[in-house]
């Protein structure tokens, strides 16, 4: 979402923001890869395990993203580094869309699971509510939504990583340092 807050007085992200960023980056990339692999598997013991782990990870990502968003709303990120206005706008748009997808992708997945008749039991212990009924047509729709939104997220992640690399090695403006753990 566009950063309408006054610029922060710090020049880099705080430790909590950095931790959220890398933890969720790892969780999202791994979940995407597992999801991609497991979707075409024939029914088997491995598939049962992978599907359930993927759902547990997805719900965890949903929860952590909510905490991350709350943190971000309460703790302003550093001001933009000098760059052409269109680049700053593109960056903010990308980040905003990423945040939307951090919620939309797992919510679509959760709905798909419920519509298919498989309520999610987080970590095999905590039953989560079904917020949609068991319905085959709805399941097909949510499956497609989950898949295409996930691919959209993957595309944005690639754009995001590409831009960070461009800033680091072409612009050489130290942008990447702001999100790396270490002293200011």
């Amino acid at each position, binding site marked *: 979402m566009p950063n309408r807050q006054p610029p922060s007085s710090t020049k880099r992200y705080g430790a909590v923001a950095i931790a959220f960023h890398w933890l969720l980056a790892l969780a999202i990339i791994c979940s995407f890869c597992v999801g991609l692999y497991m979707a075409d598997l*024939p029914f088997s*013991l491995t598939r*049962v*395990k992978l599907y359930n782990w993927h759902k547990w990870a997805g719900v965890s990502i949903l929860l952590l993203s909510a905490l991350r968003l709350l943190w971000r709303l309460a703790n302003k990120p550093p001001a933009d580094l000098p760059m052409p206005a269109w680049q700053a706008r593109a960056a903010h748009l990308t980040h905003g869309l990423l945040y939307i997808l951090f919620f939309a992708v797992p919510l679509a997945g959760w709905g798909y699971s419920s519509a298919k008749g498989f309520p*999610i039991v987080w970590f095999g212990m905590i*039953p989560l509510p079904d917020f949609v009924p068991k319905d085959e047509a709805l399941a097909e729709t949510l499956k497609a939504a989950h898949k295409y939104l996930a691919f959209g997220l993957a595309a944005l992640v690639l754009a995001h990583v590409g831009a960070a690399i461009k800033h680091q090695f072409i612009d050489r403006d130290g942008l990447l340092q702001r999100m790396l753990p270490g002293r200011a």
Partner: protein
Amino acid sequence: MKKLLTIALLALAAPLAFAQAKLLPAQSELGFTSKQMGVPVDGKFKKFDAQLTGFDPKKPDAAKVSLTIDMASASLGDPAIDAELVKGDWFDAKKSPQATFQSTAVKATGAGKYEVAGKLTIKGQVRDVVVPMTLAQAGGVSTATGAFPIKRLAFKIGQGDWADTSVVADDVQVKFKLAFSGIAAQ
């Protein structure tokens, strides 16, 4: 002559009082719920038959119940999974096409409530089970409903890799709703 007529009438009436109970398959259900990594998954058998003889609410212990279940009719609602269910590691429907239940004792435990003890045989494994059930009667149809737990591994259901109870729990809940016609009103 009168005595002969009375005896003849009684002889005719006696079997009518204990008319043969007949299962109504369209109104009956036999299913089970297993847990896959904590997630409850429902399944059912589409083909089964039940026999109930000698049921007299005043003398329930004279009743005999038996069930025959077509194992190939098992379904979890997904064709790919159903294809697995009939295989050797699971129900092995080719080698053991039928599961059976034979009652050994029936006991009344309350108004319309009974406990049926019997032998359950699945995949050649025989185990004693005690099945609590409730009998409700309405419009000439008597419906027996109940549920009881079994341990799937005791019947070798889910072998090889599938024996892992962290993926599919050992406890499986069997549920039934058996509708019969021809049982005298209680």
